[in-house]
């Protein structure tokens, strides 16, 4: 009797798996337009893009529950050039790289700063944005005038877990253990700042624009931007096909002015904004 029940359950599981697998294995051949102009052709491949969508204006979820932002449209434009279809999927930032290497996602676009350390684990595409970091403080703050003030042990910096801002903040303060608080996302870090649980937020300059706009009158930027970094797409180590296609596609959208148009669009009414003519990228992407 027991065996019979067991056999029935086993059969059911197998049947379910087969039933689930059948539609997935036979996707309708999409009649995507062929790629043009000697660019690589991904043949209409459907790509899953892992992204922490709490980072406006790079990527965030809008009121219609759609994932929108500069990164999303940039990837879509590149996909038009190299013939692919990209879907953004939300995930926690600190696990994203590992998820890309585990093939949970095909690649990741999430405002990633290119660093040598990360480059040992994943492959970065060409830079698509030049960036700096900046300190946010409460509006009435007068004690912190720039990153060098964070050496004083009474100040606490809030950052997002796993970001280069977290790494930088730990170098700026005297005691990394006590003075740096790490949150799941930047909105939480800013909330902590407003609630006086932290005295400053270290954030990428162009990601600060939207948070500043949303918290008008509560937070401000202090001091000049510091550091000089580039953002890039994150590909699985050794995935040359995807990397080369997106590098070529990025160059193409940069050359034909699409990149500048997207930049103008997403930083339209907010400050600070990137230099949308893109001169800083010219030597990397060619103009």
């Amino acid at each position: 009797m027991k065996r019979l029940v067991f056999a029935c359950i086993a059969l059911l599981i197998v049947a379910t798996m087969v039933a689930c697998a059948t539609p997935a294995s036979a996707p309708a051949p999409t009649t995507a337009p062929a790629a043009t102009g000697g660019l690589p052709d991904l043949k209409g491949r459907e790509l899953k893009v892992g992204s922490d969508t709490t980072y406006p204006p790079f990527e965030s979820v809008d009121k219609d529950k759609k994932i929108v932002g500069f990164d999303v449209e940039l990837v879509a434009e590149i996909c038009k050039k190299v013939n692919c279809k990209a879907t953004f999927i939300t995930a926690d930032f600190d696990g994203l790289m590992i998820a890309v290497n585990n093939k949970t996602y095909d690649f990741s676009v999430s405002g990633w700063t290119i660093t040598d350390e990360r480059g040992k684990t994943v492959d970065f595409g060409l830079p698509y944005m030049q960036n700096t970091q900046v300190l946010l403080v409460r509006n009435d703050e007068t004690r912190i005038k720039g990153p060098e003030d964070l050496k004083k042990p009474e100040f606490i910096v809030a950052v997002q877990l796993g970001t280069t801002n977290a790494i930088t903040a730990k170098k700026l303060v005297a005691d990394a253990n006590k003075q740096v608080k790490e949150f799941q996302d930047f909105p939480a870090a800013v909330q902590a700042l407003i609630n006086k649980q932290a005295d400053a937020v270290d954030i990428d300059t162009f990601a600060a624009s939207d948070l500043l706009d949303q918290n008008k009158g509560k937070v401000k930027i202090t001091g000049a931007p510091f550091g000089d970094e580039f953002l890039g797409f994150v590909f699985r180590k050794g995935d040359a096909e995807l990397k080369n296609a997106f590098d070529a596609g990025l160059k193409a959208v940069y050359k034909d002015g699409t990149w500048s148009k997207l930049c103008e669009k997403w930083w339209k009414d907010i400050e600070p904004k990137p230099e949308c003519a893109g001169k800083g990228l010219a030597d990397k992407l060619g103009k």
Partner: protein
Amino acid sequence: MPDAELSATKKPLSAQPGRALGIPGIERLPWWIIVLVIGGIIAASVIFTSADYINILQILGSGIYLTLTVTFFAFLLALVIGLIAGIMRVSTNPILYTISTLYVEVIRGIPLLVQILYFFYVIAPFFAERVPEPMAFIFRDEVIQGIIALAIGYGAYLAEIYRAGIQAVSRGQIEAARSLGMNYFQAMRLVILPQALRVVLPPLGNDLVSMLKDSALTSAISVKELTLWTRQRSANTFRPLEHWTMAALLYLVMTLGLSLIVRYLERKLAIPR
């Protein structure tokens, strides 16, 4: 392979593992403990012979202190909240009963993680702005925020445990106490609660262990306990396997240790039968 199966089915005695070995009583040995101990020895020998693992253990170890602190204080606070709400739950006063029932039902209907985030985003900022300055630090320290949020969340479950314990003491006890001239609170404190405590100790112990595990949720509001340390180190080093294995083992050691303490207390306070 089929041969082995055939020979096994021919021996009806082999239905019980102990009989198959011919040693009486062997089936009653706590096999799971033995497996656990052997697993623990293997894990320890791997960990303590690898410099990498020792390094990870040292780094993650600094999170244990906060995990235990948060659990300890949150449980202490939850015991108080639970006791008050539990006594109110058996009260005949309709106002007290309604308040505590509302609390229990609302809190039990909301996931703990949501409660913690709600406390961080909504309740703490509300009070931090209104409470006078020397006291406002309570709502500005994420460790205290985590402790309060966990305690409020667990208080509701503990209230129900206390209520069940109080109701398990027979009615005759309170009637006898009252007829001796005790008032309601004397009867509660001297007669009912000491008896109820014995009944509620096992479920309270379970909740203590489960709170230790749930303290991981406070990592969402940047309480730097074991889970946040693990997330952070795993993200920085890109070595999730070693870090999360170590975190799981550390939690396991803590919860098993706590369970043993709770069991010892249970046995000591058990009603002799």
